[in-house]
């Protein structure tokens, strides 16, 4: 299944060391990993996309986070999130991206910036209970194209569009 993940609030946090600025807020950070928001009432997942950048992604509506000593930029409108769910997700991604998404190469909660359907996206593996799931962040302007391309390539693998209910654990 491919699912438009729906409204999420997304904020870019940039600092010389993203880990250092997020730790006091209880937001665990590791470059190239997706980690759930920590204690302190935070409602964001932390996507470590680079040592100096994290994406804070939370269910909308969320108040913009205050992160001292960092530049926080609202990207809620600028990024779309698509989820690819199911046992054939890998076979479909294999035809779209050069990223190694094999089970032992791209483990649960891994993140990578990679080309997909000839555009640059951020891909995270974020499994649901018993189901493999890949979440793809892409520029909003390209979302329709990525959606259509994934469906076209995934057709021979039985890919179908799904609603948000599919993502319920």
């Amino acid at each position, binding site marked *: 299944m491919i699912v438009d993940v729906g409204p999420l609030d997304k904020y870019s946090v940039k600092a010389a060391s993203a880990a250092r600025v997020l730790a006091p807020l209880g937001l665990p950070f590791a470059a190239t990993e997706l980690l759930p928001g920590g204690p302190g009432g935070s409602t964001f997942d932390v996507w470590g996309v680079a040592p100096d950048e994290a994406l804070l992604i939370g269910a909308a509506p969320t108040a913009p986070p205050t992160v001292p000593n960092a530049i926080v930029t609202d990207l809620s409108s600028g990024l779309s999130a698509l989820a690819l769910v199911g046992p054939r997700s890998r076979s479909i991604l294999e035809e779209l991206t050069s990223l190694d998404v094999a089970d032992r*190469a791209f483990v649960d909660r891994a993140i990578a910036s990679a080309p997909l359907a000839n555009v640059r996206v951020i891909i995270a593996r974020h499994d649901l209970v018993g189901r493999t799931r890949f979440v793809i962040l892409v520029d909003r302007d390209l979302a329709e194209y990525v959606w259509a391309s994934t469906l076209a*390539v995934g057709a021979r693998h039985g890919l179908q569009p799904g609603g948000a209910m599919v993502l319920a654990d």
Partner: protein
Amino acid sequence: MTDERLPPADGEVIDRGSRLRFTFDGKGHSGHPGDTIGSALAARGVRMLSRSFKYHRPRALLCCDGRCPNCLVEVDGIPNVRACTAPLREGQRVRSQNAWPSLAFDVLAITDRLDRLLPIGFYYKTFYRPRRLWPLYEKVLRRVAGLGRVDITARPDLAPRTRHLHCDVAVVGGGPAGCIAALEAAAAGARVVLVDDQPALGGHLRSRSLPVHGDARIEGLSGTRAAQRLGELIAEQPGIETLIAATVFGIYEGTLLGVNQGQTVARIRAKRIVIATGAHERPALFDGNDRPGIMLGTAVLRLARLHGVRSGHQVVAIVDDGYGWSIVAELVAARVALTAVIDIGSGLPTPELPPGIEVIRGAAILEGTGSRRVTGLRIRVGAAERLVPCDAVAVSLRPEPATGLIAQDGGERRYDDRIGEFVAARLSDAVSVAGDVEGIHDDAHTMASGALAGLEAAVAIGLGTQDAIAAARTHRAACRASALARHGRPVALDAPGGRKQFVCLCEDVTVKEIAQGIEEGFEDLETLKRYSTLTMGPCQGKMCQGLATRLRATLTGETLAAAKLTTARPPFQPVSLAALAGPHLEPVRRTAMHGRHAALTDRWIDMGDWKRPHIYTSVEEECRAVRERVAIIDVSTLGKLEVAGADAGSFLDWLHPNRFSDLKIGRVRYRAMCDDAGIVLDDGTVARLGDTRFFLSTTTGTIDAMEQWLTWWLAGTDRDARVTNVTAQYAAVNLAGPRSREVLERLTETDVSKAALPYLAATEAPVAGVPAIILRIGFVGELSYEIHVPSDFGGYLWDQLTAAGADLGITPFGVEAQRVLRLEKQHAIVGQDTDGLSNPVESGMSWLVKADKDDFVGREAIAAVTARGPQQMLVGFELPERTVPEEGAAVIRDGRLVGRVTSSKWSPYLGKTIGMVSIPIEQAADGSEIEIRLPVGTVRARVATKPFYDPAGLRLRM
């Protein structure tokens, strides 16, 4: 119709219980599932399949392995299909190529008799006099050149795919060495991809019946059964993905393999590669060595064992070492009707053969007789000549290692005197070889080297143990020594004479022509190759490279040890362009307002990946709306960056010839960015929205490059500045026209009067209830506002603005109108009015350059231009008439090119042609005349250095 089927036997892949019908040149035939097109035709006694490239000689099956050019046919409209490997399918329409009017009677076969008039490189020596006849020559040459014809109107139902695979060890070649290498590597824990170009694993074992020795897993099994067993073991072993009927056509970037499997191209990224591509038999050299019926020994064997097809009723084998004799034994076991074996110099004892097979030793083969089919071999033994009658020949000379991929990878190949072949002498770090590609053709050695290669590959990536490697190395060395002892010494190349001894079957290059080329001075193999085109045909040297190298060495006196093979380049086997292109995935960017535009127009323009509305109603109407009322354009495609941090201002100072650190909060400034050489890269605006926050816009389509540029200059410094790409975050419109303020005032409570928000001011305020950045700037020379809102509200903003301005006649305007309007103001577009040599001084932007600034990127280069003075200048031009020169048209003076037109449009509002040109400084004075070349003739235009519309800029400051 003849029936050349052998009785059923173990190992055949055809299903005799079913029949498939097809046509060849319009005649009906049939075959069985499991047949190839070639084997099905051979079973029906159809031998001739094609005509050769230059001499149009009859050609037939030769290799049955997908390497030679002899069986290229057209199948269902697709040209250049190899009949020997293409699976037979029901209803196929197969046509021969390169023959007219028919394969049996080809008019151009006359060229075979005119070879004296068509020597090597004849096309360099003819067809250029008289010059006036060249159009005629070209027409004829185009008609006769090439092989298959492409139907450019055809739309075959292709569904190309691309796959990206990753593995620890990629094994190229699914013969015994490759299979065992894959098994050993996977058993050690490696992820393995095994690629083989045959429809099933097992390589040459598939067509063998004699027992195989050398590995416990298949010890004593017949070749056929051993191949099957290897396939089973591969399937049972976890961690191996197998691609069959797949060809590795190239090695790129070290360990990236390109693989073609039908209409799929797979890119395999491996940590280690094992090349187990085996070895190929090659033709022998004698006059008429291309007669139909003269085949490679393995081809005869394959036809017999896999497809149950008889190649002939009187078959003569040619051998030169132990390998050849092993093929003879297999041919006998396969019930091939062998009548003679000609051993041209192995020096090995004759093995036991059934009665009726004559063994002829020490013969020189002079000629293959016959025309449409071989009828005999004329040989000389001692001083006596005789004719050995036959209707098929199985040539099993020492095979050449298939080292093409090794060479592509940068590996070195050298002649091994003991083995008598060119083998890998040096490999790149991540590559190893296994099996017959090492030049030793012996089952035990093949499998020992496969096992060693697999183990070594696994250990190299941290899997497996070193202990097993030592034992494997010892075993392989022993197998090698044993194999070398059993096989004869290499036999020197013999080219006994005759006009039609073909070296390169693809291009019809003969021994005589190669000799002539060397005599003409093309002694170096690479120049000889280019002069003669040998190795440049469909086989890419698989049939002829070794022969050509040996022949050249013989003719020039060079030793083989010093000889080099020709350069190997991908693709190793042909790949269709459709497969290489893959599925049609062409990125398309759509703004948040795309749906609004689609409802109003179907005239779009592509600007990079973006789809933008080109024209809504008409250029004139849209321009008039901007100039006289109010209009709106979607400018969401502009690149946008937020540059924030304590050092953001000084960082922008570093990147631009002008200053931004002194820009006040709430102000906007024009920017043009240059590279180190002072070349204009991009332009746009910078708005200061906070003490440490700047909002920067770029040209549509350059945002990725500009983000990279800024990030690059920031990296490794301790500047407190961060760059964030917010292009997709904001949708934007430009609301323009003398009544634009009225519209905006209806949607915001913020004071946007001239006093409160003057020209080049910026503010953040809600518009229609949505948080917005409002910039009082414009590109089209009228009062205008650039309004940025979060993209989610883009469509909503458009709706609100068009509703608010409806009574004022608000009109959407597209890219074409915008281009005319900005040209009326002589606003340059970077990338259109500038190019890779444009600096700001000569592009009319010298006012931007602050020479008193601290160092900035491009400072030295711009200073040098300023010091020497501009030599070119970008200025406007106008024409009173409606002639519109093409953009890019030449500006000429005294008949010589001195400049070019960069932009050119008809302005309906001004009623004249306007544009911009880059011309020599001495012609750039206002009012000067310049001459512009048109498609036919020239036109004289007048230089205008001031904007054509509102030169004082009063309207945009309203």
